[in-house]
């Protein structure tokens, strides 16, 4: 293999795949980089697709190449091509149409797919969506034009964002949540109270503690949803937002080790030589909890993709792990951030909660109180990044603990007061 003209092949043109291409290009100006993407569309900012439904942004505003850090040149993107299998002995991937694409370094960045719970019947009906791709959003936007009632199954970020894009279009939206409160993955029910209030005020109807049993449809598509509590609610559209699963099907029966996601080491390498993995498809570890996780977040996917790209191009870079929880957003005009360990019921983390002037915060410390483990900020999210840094580095917080609890921390504290205890 001539080092001057390495062949890099990337499976998936999402956040991880495209971040890898920029990192590779920064290291290797000559190597060939081919991105194989199953979607027909050129890479785009996936988190923006709800704006296509609300009409706030056009498709062109979501294109990824040439925006932000995605400025790398000489990247060959092949859209509408699916990798059917990876053949490591021959160092090639086998794609739709029977072509074989050779590689020196391969990145698996195939992302994730919506989780469609098997116990909901009738999901094939027209008008049932699990929003993941730009094309899904196009179809949803088209159907939304006809108006009517929409039922969202699941109370996570994806569904909340989508719910608002539909509300903004003037549709009636109801959210059906299994948990006692919305956003249960990202915070405890008490933390979500302020957000819940704002959602209610914004006109989102929320039914907690129940599930969908069956989606009922006729020749024009979905007509209603039957819930586990016996209710049947008429609707014209259903959105399923029940999390995602790593997209690993095409790797089954192959040598790449899979445990839920593609298992990688600290250098983003799989068990197979010259094959790396990054993004939603990868199983990695969470420094906040030490557990293996599949993260499902843009921020993680980019960071891991960059790291993988560096490693593939020979610039050895250690991956610091992915936060299972690190979300920032704004719904119903309420900004919030949730990071690190936020579920503290039944364990001995030290927590501090405060509510004032319509803002809410909860700081979670290690049981011995010396490290920040997690944080939830609602409305006042200023300088959240400092707290994230402390969580990520598991730093001994020594003298700045009071400032952390009061949400008064600023960078000056890092410069002036030595962090170590007693410093």
């Amino acid at each position, binding site marked *: 293999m001539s080092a001057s003209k390495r062949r890099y092949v990337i499976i998936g043109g999402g956040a991880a795949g495209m*971040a890898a291409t920029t990192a590779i290009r920064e290291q290797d100006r000559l190597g060939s980089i081919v991105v194989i993407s199953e979607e027909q569309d050129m890479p785009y*900012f996936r*988190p*923006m697709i709800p*704006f296509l439904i609300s009409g706030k942004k056009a498709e062109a*505003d*979501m294109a*990824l190449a040439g*925006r*932000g*850090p*995605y*400025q790398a040149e000489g990247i060959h993107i092949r859209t509408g091509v699916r990798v059917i299998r990876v053949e490591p002995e021959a160092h090639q991937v086998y794609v739709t149409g029977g072509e074989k694409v050779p590689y020196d370094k391969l990145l698996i960045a195939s992302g994730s797919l919506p989780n469609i719970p098997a116990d909901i019947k009738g999901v094939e009906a027209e008008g049932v969506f699990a929003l993941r791709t730009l094309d899904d959003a196009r179809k949803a936007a088209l159907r939304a034009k006809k108006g009517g009632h929409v039922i969202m199954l699941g109370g996570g970020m994806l569904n909340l964002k989508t719910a608002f894009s539909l509300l903004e279009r003037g549709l009636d939206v109801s959210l059906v949540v299994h948990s006692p409160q919305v956003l249960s993955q990202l915070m405890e029910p008490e933390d979500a109270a302020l957000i819940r209030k704002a959602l209610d005020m914004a006109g989102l109807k929320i039914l907690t503690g129940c599930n969908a049993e069956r989606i009922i449809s006729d020749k024009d598509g979905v007509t209603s949803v039957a819930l586990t509590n016996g209710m049947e609610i008429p609707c014209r559209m259903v959105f399923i937002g029940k999390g995602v699963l790593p997209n690993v099907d095409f790797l089954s029966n192959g040598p790449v080790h899979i445990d839920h996601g593609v298992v990688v080491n600290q250098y983003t390498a799989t068990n197979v030589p010259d094959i790396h993995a990054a993004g939603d498809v990868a199983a990695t570890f969470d420094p906040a909890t030490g557990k293996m996780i599949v993260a499902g977040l*843009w*921020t993680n996917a*980019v*960071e891991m993709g*960059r790291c993988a790209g560096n490693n593939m191009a020979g610039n050895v870079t250690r991956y610091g792990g992915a936060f299972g929880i*690190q*979300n*920032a*957003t*704004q719904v119903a005009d309420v*900004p919030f*951030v949730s*990071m690190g360990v936020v579920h503290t019921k039944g364990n001995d983390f030290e927590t501090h909660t405060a509510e004032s002037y319509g803002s809410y915060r909860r700081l979670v410390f290690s049981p011995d109180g010396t490290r920040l483990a997690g944080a939830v900020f609602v409305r006042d*999210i*200023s*300088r*959240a*990044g*400092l707290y*994230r*840094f402390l969580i990520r580095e598991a730093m001994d917080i020594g003298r700045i603990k009071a400032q952390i609890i009061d949400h008064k*921390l*600023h*960078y*000056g*504290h890092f*410069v*002036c*007061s030595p962090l170590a205890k007693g410093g």
Partner: protein
Amino acid sequence: MPGPREIFVRIDRCMGCHSCELACAVEHSKNKSLYNAISEHPQPKKRIYVERADTQACVPVLCRHCEEAPCMHACICGAISRNKEGVVLTDSGKCIGCWTCVMVCPYGVIGRHLETHKSYRCDRCPDRDIPACVDACPTHALIYHTVEDFSQGVRKDTARQMTAGQGG
């Protein structure tokens, strides 16, 4: 070839007068005059923060335009990019106000403009030769230099202090 200039902070010189903050906000107003800036909508915002860490020390904190800028890579809509001079810029036309950059900035220097629902940060004053904060600083706690010049200056300062300490 010397690299592009950057804003450096000499903490020991900061008296906490906040002149830099005022100058920054005025520079980022429509009319660039203090008098008009006060009544402008959306309200002009400062992008430098003079923080008091204890009773003694003041620290001006501002965007470092990090080499591996976490905000730029984390941005979920491609609104943050780096220009040829190495300045990391937020394009407010593209910003969707998701605050992901606020969540990942380890310096805590990305602001949220509540009226416009956009994030903002230091842009190193593209219309000026010397950034407004640097120009306004009466004690030269803020200086605008290339990395090479700054470290040379620091070396000279240290040498001076050492010789002074020796009574020389």
